[in-house]
């Protein structure tokens, strides 16, 4: 198991290097630079040149990239051009908000998506199933930002029951989480439904029913665990997607998270913040994927057995596979 984790952690290195190289190159070749942006148009050419030297913007592309990566290895992501604060500080100020938002979004979609998916699958073609399926179709097709604006108009402007922006009280969280989680709720619901449908048709479920077990017990104890793998995969992917999708929710709801920080930084050509932000999001997505892979092992004894194989418990492992 440890070897597996170690291998996965090592695999993150080329991913992060690639991400950093791509984002650095894109920012480097964008016309205009931070000196223009920071000093505005009332500054003289000499002042801008001076600032370019101070910020080391005049150095060649590769030198700049290598310097940047050296800093990253030492945990130094540079200094924000606009606020002059360390990038790590700026990012860490806002990271928790984004993680909480994305986490709450995934949690919401897991609660509703899995529940609705299970009911839909067990009562296939019922009214509820049809309603839920059309809800999920709506959920997948409605653009997040449109939903967010609609929610604001309905709940904040017309009915005045929920605040339109910020995150200062628990009430403030409701609209952003719904608009962020809607899409993944629908995706997870669809995934749960199809995965459950496959499982409930299997022989061992019929056997369980034949033994006279209660339907609820059959579904939750026998069917669900076997349907979980694709659901967990999708939920993990959704978390990564929501980290990025938070850009939208944070902009519409004026929330100080990584996404909004990056949008503002892009407007100002504040490279260090953009690079740091992208790296952080890539890093956390990789970590979540790693956690998901480890979770597989806990959920599914077949996968767990593969990790344990080198530890001389081969027979038990193989047995588990054949039994299932």
């Amino acid at each position: 198991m440890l070897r597996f984790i170690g291998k996965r952690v090592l695999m993150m290195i080329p991913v992060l290097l690639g991400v950093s190289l791509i984002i650095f190159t894109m920012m480097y070749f964008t016309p205009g630079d931070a000196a223009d942006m920071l000093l505005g148009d009332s500054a003289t050419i000499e002042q801008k040149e001076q600032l370019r030297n101070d910020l080391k913007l005049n150095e060649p592309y590769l030198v700049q990239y290598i310097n940047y990566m050296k800093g990253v290895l030492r945990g130094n992501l540079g200094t924000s051009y606009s606020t002059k604060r360390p990038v790590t500080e700026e990012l860490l100020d806002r990271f928790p908000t984004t993680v909480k938002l994305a986490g709450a979004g995934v949690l919401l979609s897991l609660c509703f998506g899995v529940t609705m998916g299970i009911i839909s699958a067990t009562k296939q073609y019922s009214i509820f199933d049809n309603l839920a399926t059309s809800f999920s179709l709506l959920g997948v097709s409605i653009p997040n930002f449109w939903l967010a604006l609609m929610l604001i108009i309905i709940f904040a402007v017309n009915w005045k029951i929920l605040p339109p922006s910020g995150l200062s009280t628990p009430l403030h969280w409701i609209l952003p989480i719904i608009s962020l989680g809607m899409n993944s709720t629908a995706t997870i619901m669809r995934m749960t439904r199809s995965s459950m449908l496959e499982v409930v048709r299997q022989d061992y479920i019929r056997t369980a029913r034949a033994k006279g077990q209660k339907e609820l017990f059959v579904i939750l104890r026998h069917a669900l665990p076997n349907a979980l793998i694709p659901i967990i995969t999708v939920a993990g992917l959704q978390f990564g997607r929501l980290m990025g999708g938070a850009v939208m929710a944070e902009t519409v709801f004026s929330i100080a998270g990584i996404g909004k920080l990056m949008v503002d930084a892009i407007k100002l050509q504040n490279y260090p913040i953009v690079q740091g932000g992208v790296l952080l999001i890539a890093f956390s997505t990789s970590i979540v994927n790693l956690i998901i892979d480890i979770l597989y092992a806990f959920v599914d004894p077949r996968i767990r057995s593969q990790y344990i194989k080198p530890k001389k418990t081969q027979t038990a492992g193989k047995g588990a596979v054949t039994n299932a």
Partner: protein
Amino acid sequence: MKRRKVSRIMSLFLALTMTSLLAAGCGQKSSPNGSADAPANAGNTDTGTSTSTSTSTTPTYKDTLTIAHWEEPTTLDPQAQGKMSCGAVTVQIYDTLITLDENKSPVPALAEKWEQIDDTTFRFYLREGVKFHNGDTLTAEDVRYTIARACTNPGSSSTYKSFDGENTKVIDDLTVEIKLKSPDASIFDTLNGQRGGIVCKRAVEELGEDAYGHAPVGTGPYKLAEWQTGTELRLVANENYWGETPKTPNIVFKIITESANRVIEMETGNADICLNVLASEVARLEEAEGLRVEMGTGYQYTTVTFNMQDPVLSDIRVRQALVFAIDREAIVNAVYKGTATVADSIMPTTLLGAKTYDPNLYDVEKAKALLAEAGYADGLTINFVVQPLEEMQRITEAIQNMWKQIGVETNVSTAEVAAYLAQGNTLQVGIRNGSASDPASTLIIYDSAFGDRLNSNNAELDKMLADAKGIYDVNERSAAYHEICDYLWEAKWSLPIAFKKTIYALSDKVEGFEFDAMNYLEMEKISVAE
């Protein structure tokens, strides 16, 4: 059979969902009928008091004033930045040596009195016993230090170009002598500006320049209590303030970058004052219940600039043709809807020395004739670069269509500010927004040293600008700027399009609001009834 029933139920459900969403979305339009009197009261500052007194005899006031702010300040170090979004907050935290009254004459602030010793020397006598937020007493050394750093900090050195930071000296604890490199009649305007906020020398040196921007120490009516980056800035009243005690003990600047969201904050009562309202939001705000819109002429302008080093545009006939082909009245009406006026001068008429002209320049026939005379009877193609701001893009589209009438094709490209500025000499026509409270800073774009989009390279005008800047007598200075206006209005290096109003949205409960053309409100005078 069963299937058809299900599909009927489904379509009914879908239809219901759609209708309810639509109804909820449009519901807002019906409400203004009930409050038809609200817009009629707009602009009347007294409405707030009269309505609140009718419900209770002694109105109580909120202890927190909430401002919807359009952009997060990058720093609260007054000398490090000149952006209006920073200034809106720093003016609450810092005081300046002097302030300007409505006639632009200096009135005492941190300096009780002052005298002009010669053309380049000014002596200021400071108020005694003024305390910084950290308890230190204000001394002449703090003032000298502020001026010296303003001259070297890239964020303000171009504004303080004529100040001699090195030779500015302390005479005694409460007397400071400011030296200029050359005569500069805009000295009081510069000192009154946001970059003129007096900082505490000890605080800057202890914290370091960069950290100081996030932990400012001034002498102003409010001090920074908490800055949640990206969310809000909380200010509390300075209990040792030398002036009148602030009316409201706390101010919260909520950072809301989307203009529609700022309007929503106002509509839902989550903010008391909204700064920097866009023209497109005015109608909606005026309709809303319990809100009023205050606007007034400011220093903001939008102007089209021609690159004077471009071989085609250096011909005055081409520039005239382009100018005469633009119907500015139609543009201003369509884009600004009553929140701006057609530019009838080179600079906003609120500025000293702005001479006004007949704004009616539109004459397509004349434009065609001039273009033919210049040798472009068959037409011409122009590159026009515009920043991705809705207002500017709409103006540019209109101009593009108007120029088509005289056979000029326009290639419009959109570039973010930095990319826009980086184009430097290669762009032909540009459009810029600007705002400054002194003619010297407004006209700086026409100076050769400024380069940028105009690339004027004209020694004659440079001299006129430098001379006008150094005239201390108000009437003489005004006359000098009249001459410059004449020169530029004839030469057509640019075509000013509109002079824009500064717009605020306020809750009807706000009292003590005094309009400011730069979004730099005197918050200490404002209170909000419960």
